[in-house]
């Protein structure tokens, strides 16, 4: 992270907008069914490894790549565009 990035990041936390964007993302991922899909992926991993002790770390390693690929482009685009415009309008103030 560069200094500029860090400042932008800190400003987002300070203003509470980071949480607002997170909430927006969370909503969109629920609406489009992504959360349910990821839940199914996790269930599959647990089922495959029924004999072993499934840990959180293992679940994260196995599910993350597939879960990331499942995020719809529309959601990514919306968030990217909104964060971008938001940061650009902030700068002028």
């Amino acid at each position, binding site marked *: 992270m560069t200094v500029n990035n860090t400042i932008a990041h*800190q400003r987002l936390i300070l203003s509470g907008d980071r949480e607002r964007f997170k*909430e927006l993302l969370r909503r969109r991922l629920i609406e489009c069914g992504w959360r349910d899909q990821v839940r199914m992926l996790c269930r599959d991993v647990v089922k495959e490894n029924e004999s072993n002790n499934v840990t959180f770390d293992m679940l994260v390693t196995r599910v993350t790549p597939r879960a990331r690929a499942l995020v719809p482009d529309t959601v990514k685009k919306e968030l990217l565009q909104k964060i971008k415009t938001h940061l650009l309008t902030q700068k002028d103030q």
Partner: protein
Amino acid sequence: MNDNGCIHLNNFKAAKGIHPYKIVHAFFVSCTSYEARRYKATSCLCFTCGQPGPRMHSCLHCIYFACYAGHIQDHSKSKKHFLYVDLSYGNIFCAQCQDYIYDRELTEIAMSHRLKEAKSLGISVPFMPWLPNNNEALALRRLRKRRLISPHTTIGLRGLQNLGSTCFMNCIVQTLIHTPLLRDYFLGEKHKCKAQSSGKCLVCEVSKLFQEFYSGAKTPLTLHRLLHLIWTHARHLAGYEQQDAHEFFIATLDVLHRHCMNGVEDTEKKENGRCNCIIDQIFTGGLQSDVVCTSCSGVSTTIDPFWDISLDVAGPGSLQACLERFTRAEHLGSAAKIKCSNCRVYRESTKQLTLETLPIVASFHLKRFEHSSQIDRKISAFVSFPAELDMTPFMSSHRRAVDVGATDNNNAPEGVFEDNRYSLFAVVNHLGSLDAGHYTAYVRQMKGSWFKCDDHMITRASLREVLDSEGYLLFYHKTVLEYECDVS
């Protein structure tokens, strides 16, 4: 996995209590105040490598921040501090158990902090699913009868007998019964009648009606008691002739609203000057009227409550176009001068209507019946309406931003996070001519599942069929609900 934590966490709690978790959570996971956000913004960096991630954790023993890429583990090993908190989600990792662990008490703290955080940011509280308490769990175990809701289920659907041109009532009742939030209210038995004389409360009658619709029986219902109650309380609708469904809808809401208030203390009635009965919570919005003096540009603003929006249908071909015209600034002309409070004389002015607050159910009335001294006629012009409608362009805040040319305002945080999307859930149609007509209704039973209600007959319908229908009354429900909570 249970929520009793693990022996290591329990030992820690016995020695140090819940305070360390509470502090870490309120300042670095869910910031409950501006001050907390300032701490989080400046100090959430790995003490070892200075990076903001990946997956920052805080040691619960000494509040040492470190990333999950190895540094928190190093700290844990060298100091023998085995418990650390994930700073993104607030979960506790136990290095001795080698996994995240759950503890009911700490989960409750986390939940209350999340509510405080939402309040401090002025955003909607996250949806929390219903969890049965001990009594409710017992009741569920005792009552073994279950109903399976499948995509083919027809529960909640019942025909209504026509009592002699009462189709106007039937289609409004079908609409109310299929209003999602109203259904939840009544099936949750939220109406506690405070009226002195039972049998005279329309709200109780509707409550019973919901039970009838969801009883599983399939025979058509007869609504004579409901009709009688409305006749008694809205005298202008009494009699056996055909009535206007729109007029009946408004009259029904009015009687329901009045009966909700029966026996309620005056002090409980209003919240911020607004009635908080279920009818007003669901159906009431605020219509803003701005009158601008053409001479001094002084604005006089009034906000009036509304239950529905009546739209002219001559001209525009779509609901959005009707709304666009409804919210356009209109020049009042020299024949309709208004006294300007600034100039203190009568001036020409422009008037603009916009939506200041949106109701949960947005009801649109397409003015298809024209009554004038010369002629009474029905306008059958086609007006298309969408299954999903975004109301943002018709909001007062949005219109103001567009008018002053400050398009940037749309990107202000409120604009970005505001969600004004609505979904169609009922359409009332008038078939035939002015004097020999019939009303039917399309209702959405579940997402994507539509039915046509023609008095006692209920038939499956497609969305296409619904959208191609003429449309007289259109009912939209807010797609995403916002939640409020009371936290101190």
